[in-house]
């Protein structure tokens, strides 16, 4: 097979990945810096017989993809900060009702309207805690255009497999930069499809809280009639206020993610073997960190990096293990301190430093090198 190599934008790679993953349905609302995802899919999806919808607002876009997902569609929406805030209630609905969907948040500076055209990584905590109530989510932070494509495919798979919203957190840099991408053939990647349940309709319950297995979501209109509600519900799908059902439902929403963390987690370790300082960085910032590490090593400072690709659920175990052998950890992120809180929680015994620059510019390798030197002398 001749390799299909293209120069493309991160946002385009997300759209390309969605198509390869078998996306059936996109609904969105225009917002910088994510609009290219919508623009590209508005052309690609109809050409392959799929649905593209520009809705009246962000909330409607989120509702529409959930409606389609209940019909069995593989769905995606794309947005940025203000839009992500608006979508939160329906994201919670997706968590509660266990409806698969992929939500792309091309992060820009915030809060509020913030910096529409400039990058930030300020929505990491929002991805986890943005909607009310206890729940778990999966969130992914690609650091290149190529990774944006492959991680979008993985996001669709995880969404279907665990019946959960999956958030792809890119940022203005990754979303807008152009890089070489190797576009795979569908046969080269794993794609999980929506399936009918393996039990007949009369035996089908849309939820299962105790077996440890995720019940497939039956596409509506195929003979499996059931009820979906954002109220706490039992395994039959109908609302309940029984204490044991409430507790089981709550446990399940967390457990189905955390008990499968080995399958969901993804990370990269870079030059950690002999490192005296460990950088924790993700997304576009990890690129600067990698360059800074080469510069630091050239100057005789042994630095390595841990890069979460799945950022939620957080890689507690890996950070904890690394912190046993590397005593200084430097968290670099384009926010005022979000992932550092998780690192402080999990890295027992290491001193945790933070480099948080939020000025509309990406954090540069020089910024990081200066901080490495400071940490090294500390």
């Amino acid at each position, binding site marked *: 097979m001749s390799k299909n*190599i293209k120069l493309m934008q991160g946002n385009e790679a997300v759209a390309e990945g969605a198509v390869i993953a078998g996306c059936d349905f996109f609904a969105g609302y225009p917002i910088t810096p994510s609009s290219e995802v919508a623009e590209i899919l508005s052309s690609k999806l109809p050409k392959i017989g799929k649905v593209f919808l520009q809705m009246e607002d962000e909330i409607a876009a989120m509702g529409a993809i959930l409606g389609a997902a209940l019909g069995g569609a593989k769905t995606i929406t794309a947005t940025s900060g203000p839009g992500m805030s608006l979508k939160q209630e329906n994201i919670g609905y997706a968590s509660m009702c266990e409806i698969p969907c992929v939500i792309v948040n091309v992060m820009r500076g915030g809060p509020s309207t913030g910096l529409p*055209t*400039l990058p930030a990584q300020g929505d990491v905590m929002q991805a986890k805690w943005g909607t009310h109530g206890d729940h778990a989510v999966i969130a992914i932070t690609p650091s290149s255009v190529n990774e944006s494509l492959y991680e979008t495919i993985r996001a669709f798979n995880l969404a279907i497999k665990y019946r959960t919203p999956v958030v792809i957190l890119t940022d203005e*840099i990754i979303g807008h*930069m*152009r890089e*070489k991408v190797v576009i795979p053939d569908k046969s080269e990647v794993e794609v999980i499809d929506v399936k009918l349940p393996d039990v007949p309709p009369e035996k089908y319950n849309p939820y299962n809280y105790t077996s440890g297995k995720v019940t497939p979501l039956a596409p509506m209109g195929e003979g499996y009639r059931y009820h979906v509600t954002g109220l706490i519900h039992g395994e039959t799908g109908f609302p309940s206020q029984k204490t044991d059902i409430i507790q089981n439902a709550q446990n399940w929403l967390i457990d189905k993610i955390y008990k499968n963390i080995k399958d969901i987690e993804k990370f990269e370790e870079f030059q950690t073997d002999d490192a005296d300082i460990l950088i924790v960085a993700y997304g576009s910032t990890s*690129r600067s960190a990698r360059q800074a590490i080469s510069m630091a090593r050239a100057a005789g400072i042994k630095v390595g990096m841990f890069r979460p690709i799945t950022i939620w659920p957080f890689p507690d175990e890996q950070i904890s293990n690394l912190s046993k052998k590397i005593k200084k950890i430097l968290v670099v992120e384009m926010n005022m301190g979000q992932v550092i809180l998780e690192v402080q929680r999990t890295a027992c015994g290491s001193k945790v430093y933070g480099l948080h620059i939020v000025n509309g510019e990406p954090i540069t390798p020089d910024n990081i090198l200066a901080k490495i030197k400071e940490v090294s002398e500390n």
Partner: protein
Amino acid sequence: MSDRIEFRFSGSGGQGLILAGIILADAAAIYENKNAVQTQSYGPEARGGSSKSEVIISNDPIEYPKATKVNYMVSLTQEAFNKYINDVKDDGIVIVDKELVTDFSKAKGKLYVLDMVKSAREELGKLLGLNIISLGVLVEISGIVSHDSIEKALMKRVPKGFEDYNKKALEIGFRLAKEVKKG
């Protein structure tokens, strides 16, 4: 990192500089199998204001995607020239148009002042294509990619019916650069 070369097109929104950057990155990445990253930045408005489009080209993987030590800069407005000249390396090369940039009090690096606007007006009949002329100049002066590669990348992104027009613009750029190189 030693072979990392940084290019910056700067001017105002709507001049087509982002496209020029994309074509350069495409030529390097797809037709010469190098690594290339193209980024851009602009204000909240889509048109007007100062904008820049940057391309990093290297044989090694490119990590930090933005330009910080610029080897080659093209400026098509005085405002962009003043705003973005600081990152140009001392031995960097700056390419400007004779009519659009006239105040060189902030100049840095080696300066090439060319008649790009004048040539566009006289040979193309309009200013559309100024971005491609400047791209031709940049390619000729830097030698970063072959004429053949840049032409292929250009043709891929030119609307139907405008192939000859753009090819001509590119060649004007090559010629102007050759002239100025000769001194």
